[in-house]
């Protein structure tokens, strides 16, 4: 998304409920993947949005960490499939009419 990197302290200040201990635990669990530069951790905008989401799910919607790992795994799989589906849809969209019609007919035929 963006190349701007954000320091750990800025992330903790910017996200409600967040403390360093929880952030480190989530990094340890592989839930958040900041870039490591020697001793310091650098976050991009997608990391911060993800940390904010995890905080919201955990502290506000009271999803326990055990369940949260399942939620995040399913969510990541969902987004991956959606990204690929979108890429596939735009590829279909770029095809000539008769190819698109052929694909549509094939999908309808199955349904």
């Amino acid at each position, binding site marked *: 998304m963006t190349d701007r990197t954000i320091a750990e302290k800025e992330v903790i200040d910017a996200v409600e409920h967040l403390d360093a201990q929880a952030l480190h635990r989530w990094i340890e669990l592989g839930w958040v993947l900041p870039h490591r530069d020697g001793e310091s951790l650098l976050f991009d905008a997608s990391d911060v949005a993800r940390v904010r*989401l995890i905080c919201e799910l955990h502290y506000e919607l009271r999803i326990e960490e055990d369940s949260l790992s399942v939620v995040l795994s399913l969510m990541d799989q969902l987004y991956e499939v959606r990204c*690929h589906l979108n890429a596939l849809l735009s590829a279909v969209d770029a095809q000539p009419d008769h190819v698109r019609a052929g694909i549509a007919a094939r999908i309808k035929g199955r349904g």
Partner: protein
Amino acid sequence: MADPYEVLGISRQATQEEIRKAYRRLAKDSHPDLHPGDKGAEARFKAIAAAYGILGDEKKRARFDSGEIDASGAERQEPEREFYRQHAEAGPGFKYERRWQRGGPDEDDDLFAQIFGQHRAGTRARGSDVGYTMSVEFAEAVNGAKKRVTMGDGKTLDIAVPAGLQDGQVLRLRGQGRPGPKGGEPGDALVEVHVLPHPIFRRDGNNIRSVLPITPGEALAGATVLAPTVSGPVQLRVPKGSNTGSILRLRGKGVASPHGNGDQLVELRVVLPAHPDEELVRNLTEWEAKHPYDPRKQGDQA
């Protein structure tokens, strides 16, 4: 602007705890990041968050109830927020893709590889792999074993358990997965093997640890006793003056590995008779009276 009580589906007499519960339930159903395919989710979630923004705060709720603020007034204070899905849906190759996949990404599982695999490779698609789990005895994992196992789906597999197998190790059996569509090559069976715990032996890298009970006499005077190993019992010389916690090494009786076999480490445990008689108690008490020592104090073990 909708009435916040109606948005959260609660009565005006609801307690703060009831409000919190209603908010959590509705927010889980409408959080846009958890429902990316639901176009109405974002609008619903914002309405729920706005309603909770008023009712979740007892002071604001009182001001709303008395007519001091209205539902829309509070909503305008909400800053425009960014959702995670704006990042996650940016396109294939997002950094959190494949995070869920244990052991890292596998090219064969890529969606496009699945769709176009046939054409890309110029060959027919391969059948998919099938995962199984099974358990083996401790000794089978150490020494290796050949086993015929019928899996949960009725498939019978001949499995060669390699000597030195680790708990959780996955064995790949080529061609034992699903048949390939239209005559393609079959997939593989991936068998995750669990090692059952043993009552005596415990694995420690390539070494095996065990505890061997001995009598006080054997410990004091030394003795040759039979000690169990994974390849059968062997004679073990207990040196004179051994004690509980002394560790004896049986070279090469551990787990086989390409770098040479591990050892078995036998920890001695001095065990008193289950029903000590008068004579033993009297003799020992008299001896201790003449030779006092405190085993709880370092350097005073007589």
